[in-house]
């Protein structure tokens, strides 16, 4: 973002806004989608789709930014649109994963709070570790796109393992 919209305060504002917006609607949609016959195939496909949605950012990020830069003079709306173009869709689908996980893991109403709590724990501590690792070390060792490719690969691997599990291990419902 910085090469096109700078490091002004509204660039940070845009990025945080878009992430929060995408996550909130992702949570809503993920919860809704988990009502009808939840299974690991659908769960895995959420990971695969998230991964695939990262591709435009990795491959065409600069073209997207340049396109917006040429059309929007005001850096506030430019950066808001830029952040949407890069992060909105992948983050939306990633947001769907959390409530869907709750649905798959909850066994009884009695334990639902505990399960949800555990998932919050995992996801938030993951965010914390990811943030500190990236900002302290990864940017020193790798180019940004290398880091994004690794995230892409992780999503595809997680998604594939969930789908394989659905195909070969889960009890079949006829």
């Amino acid at each position, binding site marked *: 973002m*910085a090469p096109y919209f*700078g490091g*002004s305060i509204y660039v940070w504002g845009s990025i945080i806004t878009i992430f929060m917006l995408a996550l909130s609607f992702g949570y809503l949609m993920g919860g809704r989608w988990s009502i009808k016959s939840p299974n690991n195939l659908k769960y895995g496909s959420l990971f695969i789709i998230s991964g695939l949605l990262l591709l435009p950012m990795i491959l065409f990020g600069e073209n997207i930014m340049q396109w917006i830069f040429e059309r929007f003079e005001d850096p506030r709306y430019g950066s808001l649109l830029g952040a949407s173009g890069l992060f909105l869709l992948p983050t939306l689908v990633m947001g769907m994963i959390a409530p869907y996980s709750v649905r798959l893991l909850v066994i009884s109403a009695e334990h639902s709070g505990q399960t949800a709590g555990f998932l919050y724990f995992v996801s938030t501590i993951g965010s914390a570790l990811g943030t500190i690792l990236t900002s*302290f070390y990864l940017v020193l060792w790798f180019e940004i796109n290398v880091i994004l490719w690794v995230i892409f690969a992780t999503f595809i691997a997680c998604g594939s393992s969930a789908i394989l599990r659905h195909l070969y291990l889960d009890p079949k419902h006829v």
Partner: protein
Amino acid sequence: MFNLMIRICLLLGVCSTLQAKDIIHTEKSLYRNISVVKEDSLLCLVFETRKDNPPYQTCVDETDKKRLVFSYTKLVLSGLLYKPEADHILVIGLGGGTLPMTLKELLPEAKITSVEIDPSVTKIARQYFDYQEDDRIDTVTQDGRLFIKRAALNNKQYDWIILDAFNGDYIPEHLMTQEFLQEVKQVLTDDGIVTANTFSESKLYAYESATYQSVFGDFYNVKRRNTGNRIVLATNNKSLKPLPVIKQNAEKWQTAFDVFGVDSDWIYHRFTPEKDWDENSEILTDQYAPVNLLKND
């Protein structure tokens, strides 16, 4: 009573903070804490990110307002030794506004555009440091990279671009990358020059030098020994002007510089074409620019 205070402060070892230093004004801006401090006859701008002796950004001597107090500001004038005429000048990073005001006087024809990200800095420069816009000086509140990218899109050109945005504790990394310097090059006239006030120590020195070299080819370093600063003087021309030409220009500027307390011969002797960095060093790019981590290494 005063004696007692001195004794107590000596005892506690905090005298430096009590030494005739008056805080005239403080302000929390969007980006940092800014204060204006008076120390003897010096009025200084401070971007306060730490408590003990934060570095001064700009100082003005109230008994001799035109005198350039800091040696790095003086060294930026090396641009005039290299290229004595400039009609359009771009200054990225305003500080107290001393540079635009000085250049306005030295170059009676020049138009100067200052770009400053923080509106509070501009306000304070006007209020305390006699920075004044007119038909030859204007200020744009914007990120420097954004301004230059937009200028390139509109085919604007400058004879001299001064990069002076690296004074704070946090370095804006997007103003150090190869892509940024290529954009800077795009808005330079054919014989235009860049002077960048940057770092001369830590690992960053090699990375940064290699990045400038990759975009501009050979350049001059203008620096004093044992200070954290140096000026990179690079040009859009393929070859650098030789030192004797610069020496001649230095002689021409001697009297004009006197008013500002600057010795042009002293600046001339700070020029060095020597490549005293690891030339195999990696280059900073938009994809790889951990400058704030490198700075502490």
